[in-house]
């Protein structure tokens, strides 16, 4: 088990470092550096003073040294400052993080529950009308652009029925944290819809696979009631790949929240990312990209370890 974990870590750590180097290269090659950003564009400064400042900050060092300075800063949570406004990037990230976490956790939980249940039903009723309807509904779910889905939801529930607010999160008029629950409903549901369809497909295939195994026949031949066979023997085994799917969904979740946050003006990281891309604020864009890559890699590592714990075949079967 320990060798398995070490082997996985040895694959992932060099990759994260390699990607961080690429990201640093992109930052380094872009016009301007920390000094030009500090200067007041109106004032003219003695070029010698600029050179001095560069040397003091270590900007004249070779590329690898500069990378190391940047990288050790990143490890301590120092990502530099934004191009627009010059605020420390780590500070805005922390401001935005709760909003995104809130939205994605709810979407992750909802899509796991709905997807697993619908997929299992679909598999148990394989080939029937229920299965066909669910399959087609899943296809429709992944085919509608999520922002279009969000727009339709806004028109129906916010503009016409006026049940829910159009967007935003913690509005100034709110007294307590719980007042923003209505704001949360539409974005989180829209974000879960697309992922539910994916989980459903996967859960259905996993359940069908599990149901065709020998141990299901054994369980049936022991005379166990059908629900016990399906739930305790089939569903449990089918659940492993569904857990794995959480890892696969993370990139979808990040991508989905970028667009959904924009539609509902949700002040999270996705919203910040789009704003930074629009302003060509490369340091912020790259920091968010780096963090999302690291997050994806770490989660995939955790998922790999979890599946190895659940399913011994994984850790013993070589790669």
């Amino acid at each position, binding site marked *: 088990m320990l060798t398995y974990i070490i082997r996985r870590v040895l694959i992932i750590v060099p990759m994260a470092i390699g990607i961080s180097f*690429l990201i640093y290269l992109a930052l380094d090659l872009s016009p301007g550096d920390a000094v030009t950003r500090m200067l007041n564009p109106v004032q003219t400064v003695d070029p010698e003073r600029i050179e001095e400042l560069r040397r003091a900050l270590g900007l004249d060092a070779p590329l690898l040294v500069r990378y190391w300075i940047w990288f050790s800063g990143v490890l301590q949570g120092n990502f530099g400052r934004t191009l627009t406004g010059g605020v420390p990037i780590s500070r805005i990230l922390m401001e935005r993080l709760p909003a995104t976490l809130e939205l994605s956790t709810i979407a992750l939980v909802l899509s796991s529950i709905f997807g697993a249940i619908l997929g299992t039903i679909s598999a148990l009723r394989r080939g029937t009308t229920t299965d066909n309807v669910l399959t087609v509904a899943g296809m429709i779910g992944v085919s509608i652009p999520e922002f279009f889905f969000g727009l*339709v939801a806004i028109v129906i529930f916010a503009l016409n029925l006026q049940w829910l607010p159009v967007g935003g999160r913690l509005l100034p008029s709110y007294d307590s944290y719980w007042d923003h629950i209505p704001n949360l409903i539409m974005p989180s549901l829209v974000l879960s819809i697309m992922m539910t369809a994916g989980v459903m497909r996967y859960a259905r295939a996993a359940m069908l696979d599990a149901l065709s195994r020998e141990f299901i026949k054994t369980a049936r031949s022991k005379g166990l009631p059908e629900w016990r066979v399906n739930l305790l023997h089939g569903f449990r085994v089918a659940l492993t790949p569904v857990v794995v799917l959480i890892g696969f969904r993370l990139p979808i979740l*990040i991508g989905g929240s970028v667009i959904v946050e924009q539609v509902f003006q949700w002040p999270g990281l996705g919203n910040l990312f789009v704003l930074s891309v629009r302003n060509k604020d490369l340091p912020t864009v790259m920091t968010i990209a780096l963090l999302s890559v690291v997050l994806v890699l770490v989660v995939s590592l955790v998922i790999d370890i979890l599946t190895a714990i659940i399913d011994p075949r994984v850790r013993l079967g070589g790669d």
Partner: protein
Amino acid sequence: MALSDIVSRRTRLDRQFDQLRRLEEAGKLKPASGSRVVRKFLNNRLAVIGLVVFTLILLASIFAPLLTPWDPTKINLRAINQSPSWEHWFGTDKTGRDVFARVLYGGRISILVGLGSALISALIGVIIGCYAGYVGGWLDAIVMRISEAIMAFPEIILVLVLVTILGQSLFNIMAIFIVGGWCGIYRLVRAQMLSLREEEYVQSLRSFGLNRALISFKHMLPNALGPVMVNITLSTAAFILQEAGLSFLGLGVPLSMPTWGNILNVAQDLTVLRNSWYLWLPVGIFISLFVLSVNFIGDGLRDATDPTAQG
């Protein structure tokens, strides 16, 4: 639910099978002709519906000048913000451009971006995957690391990072999609090649002294084409959705060019959303229908080419 229920439950496939058996007993069954893949595909109702819708929308975009007299980019200040009428089927936008014409002409670019990027990434992925997968060695190791690095990025993050660096243009958007898109097909073809490499017919070709490129491209590749075709359709759908999303954010193809996403861009305005449904609802339905039809085709292709994936 007892076991007997499961066995006795009749599905459409069962009924089809009974029908076939009746025909066979009556001696009316003709021997099957044509490609088995084509027959299986045509037997899949959803795939056929998908193919019909796909063809209709594709033809409507290609022959847009025959279907609408309006120019999608021509500003007409005498006809701004009109509701749908016989003259303007989907109304006109705030600069008087005919929305129906924009949807048809926009389809050209959206489909070009989706299908074009998918085909080019497939071409790149197949060539590299085929050769690297068969030959292995350092070339394969390097390409594998590159693809892993690219795939570690969530798709939209990578796309937007590249948009920030390269800027927005039709060419850039397609290039960016291809940079993110070839890895999937490369890995798929590579995996196929690795499993085919040990087949006996490959070993015998090798012992005949055929060169590696000939073996991998001419003799092994055709056996891996099924999943590649499925992957092309599915990535076409994905790219069209991505283009729409990007343009909706205003970060995709430049706004001066009509694409489905760019037409939807106006829907960020709440008054448009509330008052002018015809500006965004029909386009949204067009995108959804087109992507749905491509997904149906992809699913049908998968069932037709890969019997093990059929659920």
